[in-house]
């Protein structure tokens, strides 16, 4: 049994016919070819697949695409509308070496963008807690924390 769904992704509405069992992560990657959203574990542990669902970060591997019918999704591709200009958090990741292989990065970004909106002046401890649901096998997290603090300073205009 397939279902007709319409999902707004990064501001654009897409209508597709999908199987109920299609994961939202696979819909984003395979149907929409938005491969910025990564899939690491498919059981909610790694955070690589994090996207914004109606503005809140969620695991896209733990939702079915049919459940997003009528809802709005933001993926990492939606962070900046200008391909020549990164989102300030992306820019800070770049400058502070917040990534090595980059596999985890989209999940970190999609977790941290709403975090910084809600808490524009986080302490280091708060940043560490905010990223506790995202795994990175390369950086040792230190540079990710540095990047978030750098972005916070810039976003606050100092």
């Amino acid at each position, binding site marked *: *049994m397939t*279902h007709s769904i319409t999902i707004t992704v990064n501001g654009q509405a897409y209508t597709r016919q999908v*199987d*109920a*069992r299609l*994961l939202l992560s*696979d819909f984003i990657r395979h149907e929409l070819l938005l491969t910025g959203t990564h899939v690491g574990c*498919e*059981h*909610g542990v790694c*955070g690589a697949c*994090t996207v914004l*669902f109606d503005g*809140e*970060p*969620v*695991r896209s*591997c*733990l*939702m*079915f695409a*049919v*459940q997003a019918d009528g809802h709005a999704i933001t993926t990492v591709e939606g962070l900046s509308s200008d391909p020549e200009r990164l989102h300030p958090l992306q820019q800070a990741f770049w400058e502070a070496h917040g990534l090595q292989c980059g596999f985890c990065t989209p999940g970190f970004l999609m*977790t941290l963008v709403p*975090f910084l909106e809600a808490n524009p002046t986080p302490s280091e401890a708060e940043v560490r*807690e*905010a990223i*506790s*649901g995202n795994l990175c096998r390369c950086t040792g997290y230190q540079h990710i924390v540095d990047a978030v603090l750098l972005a916070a300073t810039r976003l606050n205009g100092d």
Partner: protein
Amino acid sequence: MKPAPFEYYVPRSLDEALALLAEHGYDAKPLAGGQSLVPAMNFRLAQPAVLVDLNNLADLAGIMADGEGGLRIGAMTRQRAVERSPLVAQRAPLLAETLPYIAHPQIRNRGTVGGSLAHNDPAAELPAVALALDARMRVRKQDGERVVAASDFFLGIFTTALEPDELLTEIVFPPLPPRSGVAFEEMARRHGDYALVGCAARVTLAENGKVSDSRLVFFSVGDGPVQAVAAAKTLRGQRPGPAAMRASAEAASQEIDPPSDIHASADFRRHLAQVLARRALTRAVDRASALR
């Protein structure tokens, strides 16, 4: 790592949802936040033929005051909403204190209170808190409703009193007696991981400052929330000084029978139980004393 095929229904009303469950029985599963069910389906540990998605049942979500000091929480209320609720902080501080320990914000944005209680993972925080607070579960099926006390609800590993055609609709937290203090403690290797051991304490003081009632509920030490009934009783009628609390915590760590697994040995769990129970009792007593 992909779920097996299933039929998907997204009912618009509770009656419609209950009718679907009545029709499909054991073949069907309600889908709440999906934060436990979908991983199990991805691994094919669960292969329900029918999913009844509760996410459009707005009536099942909400946090309401109940009489003087009580609280009612709809089963589909997101854990994140409970965490952020001033009403919960005021009327069920134990719940408010516990919420941030459950998984991560991304998971709590989807995960529901009802889903966690219905799932009854032995490592889950909320069943222990529900038991410590004498919560009552409102359970509906097509032709009726019943209310199940927390002490009768959690039956074993991933098992509750819910029948396949029933839905948990609401959880009622009665007000605590006067001069009651509560506290929550857990030890996990990483913030957000399932705890190695956790403990919820509740202490009520009599007007003379002696303990009139006390409760210790552990999780991750058995096949669901585990009450250390005898150990908690040792405090009753006593002045809650450090020695009495230490003795009660020590007795609790002997009363429970934790498992050994890859995460921790039984001995280590007992040790943690003793330390966490002592800390939780101490804070619960401090809070109760402040109310005298």
